[in-house]
């Protein structure tokens, strides 16, 4: 087996993930390289879910019976774990949502309904980038349409980096909010947070970071980032589906208006008017995703027990190896950075004229799961004049042998359509 420096003990880790034993297409063991879409779940997370439902299930808050107190302690305990995981100054800054998309919509809507100085209206500008996931584009398009604000964006260079050459024209005194992804979900690019934040702070704009592709893979420290909001999603970081996180700076969460209304988010309700609970509850209307938060807490424990720095190192080694091996495949062109520097473990590519759908299908027949399409980042495809890419994305359980299987699979694809 290929040995690379910095690899984790994947043999041990893979035992925690029941799905990785799955066989497909007549007994082929799955090679799961679709981690940017969603990660697999370790036994520890499934155990936490089962324990919650089998022993502690109750609705949270407002209850004096023992199950309600246990469920509340577990749910709020998950908030503590997530707060620690991202080094949040306060647990009250951690809002549970259903996914990163809701988190990003929440920010957009808070600003749309806010009073000055936060209010987004026809005098103001919103800045995003061309490499955003649709979930960090459409909410801002909707906000711009509904408020009359102007939407602007950074372009992409030929090697898949943000083009910040015109930063002073893009981010201006009119800019109210800058929202961008820390790691591109299609190209793996890691973006230069500091440069963007510095300029945003200069003009007094708020900054929202989409960390959906960062939280699973690297140390995420919201204090070091210096952003105002950070959004991410549970299912990509070993957690269940149905849970996302929005971290926001306390003063902002206090000042900004609520979004969804309902149970849990109120202080007092009469038919004539209502007042709202302090954050985070103000932004958590209705019965929250209780079990899912508990599952995310277990995921965060699991990742921490392995070490986010170690995971980043492992993925870096895999990425370096994968980039090297992939570039050996004739006609393969990487869309995005073609080295392992400042990039995550997500690699998009094209293979000659063979359509990604065909690449993906023939890989699937060999038991190799990759994603094909525009990966919810169609503007990137438009930018590079391609309809779609094939994307392989790795995680803490990925091995060099899986990279080899991918490369062998691609050779087979080439022969098949050659």
């Amino acid at each position, binding site marked *: 087996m290929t040995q690379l420096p910095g690899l984790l003990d994947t043999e041990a880790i893979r035992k925690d993930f029941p799905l990785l034993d799955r066989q497909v297409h007549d007994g082929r063991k799955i090679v799961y390289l679709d981690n940017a879409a969603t990660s697999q779940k370790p036994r520890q997370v499934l155990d936490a879910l089962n324990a919650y439902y089998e022993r502690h299930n109750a609705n949270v808050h407002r209850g004096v019976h023992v199950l309600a107190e246990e469920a509340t302690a577990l749910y709020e305990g998950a908030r503590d774990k997530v707060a620690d995981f991202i080094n949040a100054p306060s647990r009250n800054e951690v809002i549970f949502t259903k996914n990163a998309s809701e988190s990003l919509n929440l920010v957009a809507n808070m600003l749309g309904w806010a009073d000055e100085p936060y209010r987004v209206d026809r005098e103001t500008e919103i800045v995003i980038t061309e490499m955003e996931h649709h979930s960090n584009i459409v909410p801002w398009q909707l906000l711009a349409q509904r408020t009359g604000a102007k939407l602007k964006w950074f372009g992409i260079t030929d090697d898949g980096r943000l083009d910040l050459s015109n930063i002073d024209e893009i981010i201006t005194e009119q800019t109210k909010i800058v929202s961008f992804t820390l790691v591109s979900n299609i190209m793996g690019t890691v973006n230069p947070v500091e440069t963007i934040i510095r300029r945003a702070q200069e003009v007094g704009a708020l900054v929202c970071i989409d960390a959906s592709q960062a939280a699973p893979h690297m140390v995420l420290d919201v204090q070091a980032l210096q952003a105002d909001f950070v959004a991410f999603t549970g299912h990509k970081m070993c957690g269940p589906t149905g849970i996302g996180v929005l971290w926001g700076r306390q003063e902002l969460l206090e000042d900004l208006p609520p979004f969804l209304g309902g149970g849990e988010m109120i202080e007092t309700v009469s038919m004539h008017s209502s007042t709202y609970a302090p954050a985070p509850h103000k932004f958590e209307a209705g019965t929250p995703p209780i079990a899912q938060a508990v599952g995310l807490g277990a995921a965060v424990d699991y990742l921490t027990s392995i070490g986010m720095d170690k995971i980043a190192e492992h993925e870096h080694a895999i990425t370096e190896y994968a980039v090297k091996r992939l570039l050996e495949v004739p006609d393969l062109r990487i869309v995005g950075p073609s080295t392992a520097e400042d990039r995550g473990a997500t690699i998009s590519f094209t293979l000659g004229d063979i*359509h*990604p*759908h*065909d690449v993906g*299908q*023939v890989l699937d027949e060999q038991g190799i799961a990759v994603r*094909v*399409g*525009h990966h919810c980042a*169609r503007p990137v*495809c438009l930018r590079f004049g391609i*309809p*779609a890419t094939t994307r392989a994305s790795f995680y803490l359980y990925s091995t060099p042998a899986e990279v080899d299987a991918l490369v062998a699979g691609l050779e087979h694809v080439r022969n*098949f*359509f050659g």
Partner: protein
Amino acid sequence: MYQDVILDHYKHPHGRGLRDGDAEVHHVNPTCGDEITLRVRLDGATIEDVSYEGQGCSISQASASVLNDLLVGKELGEAQKIQETFLELMQSKGQVEPDDAMEEVLEDAVAFAGVSKYPARVKCALLSWMAWKDATAKALSEEAKTA
């Protein structure tokens, strides 16, 4: 699912390229970005030509080629019947084993039976057929207008 017939049509598409037509449509498969621009030329109730250009996977490309083979020269009523039979096959989720009757109607297109097992690919196979239907409707309504 990649029958030789499909691969042949993919590698050597029939009737590809845009030629004169009575109506043109542009269809997109939003989930994967496959695109087709398709023109229909009618002569009364006869399909004189179906010309097309597009980008997409082997399935969508081969399907357009097969469509061109099957429909050009046919009467509209017959073409409609072929289209419906193909649609039925594609929506069968791999449950329909094409019989002789179906094979007579669909000819090469029966090779797509295997594709119907893959929900994500059914849309690829249908892209050109939906575009053809749309373009034909458009051509007929323009005709009605100028009549």
